[in-house]
């Protein structure tokens, strides 16, 4: 499916979904990179050795859940924009998603935006909590988006045109 449409299959996603136990402990990176390609900046960028050693540059990155603290450094370093951080402990009802954003416009803090899934289809709404920018991020901004908890493994983008 992924190879034909660009949309990861439910099995692909299941394979990278952290355990409920790990999710209950705080933020963690979800790496949606399912193909062996010659690429490893995520691995070299992680300051906590939370991505398993890539002996061969073609190896797929694998998260080591106990080492990852969801800092999001890898999110802005991945040329595939394939890494997201999910924090299921954000609040009683909401989860926080950190996602890379390289488009215009850039949503303002506190704006309510329409959320999209991996196929670009509408999911619901989210609230922008923070937009990280600055030199370190090298023009790949990181949007911190609060979404209803049940949407946290669905939402992977936001709809342009639903914010200024």
């Amino acid at each position, binding site marked *: 499916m992924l190879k034909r449409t660009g949309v990861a299959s439910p099995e692909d996603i299941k394979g990278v979904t952290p355990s409920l136990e790990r999710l209950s402990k705080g933020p963690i990176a979800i790496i949606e990179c399912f193909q062996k390609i010659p690429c490893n*900046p995520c691995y070299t960028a992680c300051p906590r050795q939370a991505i398993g050693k890539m002996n061969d540059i073609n190896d797929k990155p694998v998260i080591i859940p106990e080492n990852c603290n969801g800092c999001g450094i890898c999110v802005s370093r991945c040329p595939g924009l394939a890494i997201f951080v999910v924090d299921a402990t954000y609040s009683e009802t909401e989860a926080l998603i950190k996602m890379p954003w390289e488009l215009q416009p850039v949503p303002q803090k506190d704006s309510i935006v329409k959320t999209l899934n991996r196929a670009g289809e509408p999911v619901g709404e989210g609230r922008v909590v923070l937009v990280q920018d600055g030199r370190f991020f090298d023009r790949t901004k990181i949007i911190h988006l609060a979404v209803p908890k049940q949407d946290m493994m669905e939402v992977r983008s936001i709809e342009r045109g639903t914010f200024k």
Partner: protein
Amino acid sequence: MKNVDIAIVGGGPAGLCAAITAADLGAKVILVEQDDALGGQLVKQTHMFFGSEKQHAGTRGIDIGTMLVEQVESNPNIEIMLNATAMGYYPDGVLGINQEENFIKIKPLKMILATGASERMIAFPNNDLPGVFGAGAVQTLMNVYGIKPGKRVLMVGAGNIGLIVSYQLLQAGVEVAAIVEGSPNIGGYLVHASKIRRLGVPVLTSHTILEALGDREVTGAVIAKLDEKWNIIKGTEQTVVVDTICLAVGLTPLTELIDQGGGKLAYIRELSGYVPIHNQELESTVSGIYVAGDLAGVEEASSAMVEGKLAGAVAAKALGYKPKAAEQIIEEAHQELFDLRSGPVGAGIRAGISKLQEVRQRC
């Protein structure tokens, strides 16, 4: 007549790295570029690159270009010639260059050709209408000159170039109606496909463009579904309303100069067409002429940079410059190339290179 150790033709990532490496080893280098700026394809690549740290992965192509160009410009052993097209290489070892209508002759001891590749076209009715572009042209318009090619685009081809240029169109605020791809699978990296898909752009595999619509300019395109044998499935034709059709259907090595200079070519599908026959050290069939980058087989900027480094070190070593240091660079470059090509997406290149070696043994 100018005498020099090494003349390098083409100022893309391969030529730049060849120049830096050879000059660092002590060789006097002239770098010849037909454009008014160095950088080759890198000047329009606003996305972060793949690869490993050694090839500056995670950095944007354009920033890699700027960094390499700065190294070249500050190197006293390198003379840069811009707006200078290498026209021909003659049996007496002279390279003829047209620089702003002045004909300049250079006599180098060694030569490295890194002329890159040109875009392919495909045949369909009305493909000559204004509004039909190559992906490279679209990228140049947008990312070098800041001009949008149109309002709504149909992209043809889901290799890395089609995927990346689609993404860059979205970044520029242009709508992408769809990406059509004849093959049943997406050819480019799936992470690129996913990042466009989640912005709502459909990637239609097993689909092709039948014709462009419009009288004086593109007003739409007819696309249709293909079966496993690439036959059009009747009744699946549909019209998409677009003002721009962008073709990203592959590149083919720019072999004119090496061909004219007497280098033998071989047709190797996996390397994207006719390529100069060359050995592991990138020497063509003409002694002392090396090839690097997309010219030696269309691949990636990461491998082009490493091949440039390899060719630069081989040529400098052949002239006796710091042979030990050169040898070490050569070894490292071979290892880096091996690593880059070792995975499943490198399978085509590996097959192409072994075919090329077979052809070389025979000639």
